[in-house]
């Protein structure tokens, strides 16, 4: 594999996707909602909701809290009613929702890179270059996965700043991120980004347009929603260990999907779809 070519493909794809407004506008709006709108809402609510409603809400939360590991329960034991609400909403309930971002980013860029190239009729010239199939594949993976991870990390950084800044009057200290967020950000997020990309490559062999690919990979959001439901219902708690284990499982799935994708990504099958 030729790393100079890989870098050129990745940069070219990124330049192209930057100019595709249909691709990057949702990629800009959703992180703003998650990293800015949501924390401001959940940190602001305790200031607006009457204390008795808050107490009732905290009562519902108790079911969730008692299913948590003991060391995590202690976080709530030492907090006020308002602080507990903010920790519950921003530290636990929103956590799985953040996985939508790496999934969305990688599938948008992946769809533009793999399917958009075909849709815009530029694939043929690329196939006539001396670059090997492996170089083309790796370039396109990097083009989709690296920006997806970086954008997700940027969103996490913004979220951390906003949560701590908005809840400063309540806590008077930097309390976020909670320990489970570290494996979420640095282990599960890259794995989910790769999952979105690998799914896009597989789907790309069956669809004709960028939008079709994007919509189909969008169905992977169901996995993230399942994690969210699991978290809310208490069936699956995203702690440090469980997040690490889920991440490991996703990496294994990624490896299998990449292995299958490599088999489908070759000049003979790509030219057949032009």
């Amino acid at each position, binding site marked *: 594999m030729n790393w100079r*070519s890989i870098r050129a493909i990745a940069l070219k794809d990124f330049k192209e996707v930057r100019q595709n407004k249909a691709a990057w506008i949702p990629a800009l709006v959703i992180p703003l909602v998650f990293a800015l709108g949501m924390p401001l809402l959940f940190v602001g609510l305790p200031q607006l909701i009457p204390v008795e409603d808050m107490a009732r809400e905290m009562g519902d939360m108790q079911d969730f809290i008692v299913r948590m590991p003991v060391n995590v329960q202690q976080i709530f034991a030492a907090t006020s009613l308002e602080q507990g609400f903010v920790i519950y909403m921003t530290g636990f309930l929103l956590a799985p929702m953040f996985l939508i971002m790496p999934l969305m980013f990688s599938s948008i860029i992946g769809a533009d890179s793999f399917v958009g190239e075909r849709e815009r009729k530029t694939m043929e010239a690329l196939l006539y270059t001396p670059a090997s199939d492996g170089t083309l594949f790796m370039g396109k993976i990097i083009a989709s996965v690296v920006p997806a991870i970086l954008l997700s990390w940027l969103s996490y950084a913004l979220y951390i700043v906003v949560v701590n800044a908005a809840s400063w009057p309540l806590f008077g200290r930097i309390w976020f991120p909670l320990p489970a967020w570290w494996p979420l950000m640095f282990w599960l997020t890259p794995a989910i980004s790769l999952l979105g990309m690998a799914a896009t490559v597989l789907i790309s062999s069956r669809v004709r347009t960028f939008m079709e690919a994007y919509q189909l990979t969008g169905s992977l959001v169901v996995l993230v929603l399942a994690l969210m439901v699991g978290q809310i219902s208490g069936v699956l708690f995203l702690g440090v260990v469980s997040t690490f284990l889920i991440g490991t499982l996703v990496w294994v799935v990624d490896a299998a999907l990449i292995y299958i994708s490599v088999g489908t990504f070759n000049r003979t099958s790509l030219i057949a779809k032009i």
Partner: protein
Amino acid sequence: MSLIIEVKDLHRLFGDIHAVDGLTFDIEPGEVFGLLGPNGAGKTTTVRLLNGILPPSSGSIRIFGLNPAEQGEQVRQKTGVLTENPSLYERLSARENLTFFGTLAEIPEEVLGGRVTEILSFFELESRAQDKVETYSKGMKQRLALARALLHQPPLLFLDEPTSGLDPEAALQVNALIESLSHKGQTIILCTHNLTEAERLCDRVAVMNTGRVLALGSLADLSRRLWPATWLDIQLWEAPAESILEAAKSFRGVKQVQAESVSLSVRLESKETIPSFVRHLVESGASILRVNPRAHSLEDIYFAIQNGQKAGEL
């Protein structure tokens, strides 16, 4: 002289469809070789097979001694391809497009910038180098696509329908560029169904249909093989005397003689007999002003072959 391309009994099947069916030809350095045929004749599939984009179902290909199915990357280092669709990144500038493709062609970083400038200048695109390709006219896009194909100075160039969809002026520009490359000794494979273009540019042509080569050779070869007998138009100083007409009719190889005023039209068995026939007429007392063998255009040849006329003899 060593051959650049050697293709033997090449076949490519797509399911039950024979896209390329028993292709055999060689190409020498500096030759402009035309692949002619209607849409679906197998021209583009042939280009893909020769560049290692598709593996053959059977048969052998050697390009610069390499097997494209196994050494595709090395083969594509030595080839440049102008695809039927320009296949340019419309959201990028001309310079960005060429820099990208130059990197993939492994042009060293330290010379790439200079080479891009040089080729943009050669194709008269330098003043628009920073503009997005989507703002270019069709002719400019085709010139840029041709610049891309030549960027890494490949010894073998494939041009797939280079003037397809261009207005006459742009087509003329592109043809002039191809002609100048040919004069510089560039080996070119030209896929086209534009017969005027092929006649002007090609040293030899292969006429294809449904994946098969129906005829292969130079224009003169094909014409000779299709129409061994030839018509000769002769203009005389004065109306031919009976003795001259008799001399013409009695010459061995003459099939038919028609006289009209100061003109004679003679059908000869083969072109080879023209010089001796003319000498014979002069010796018989004819005052000849002009001799004009009737030529067949590539169009005549192409349609004769495609319509199956005498194709079995080729």
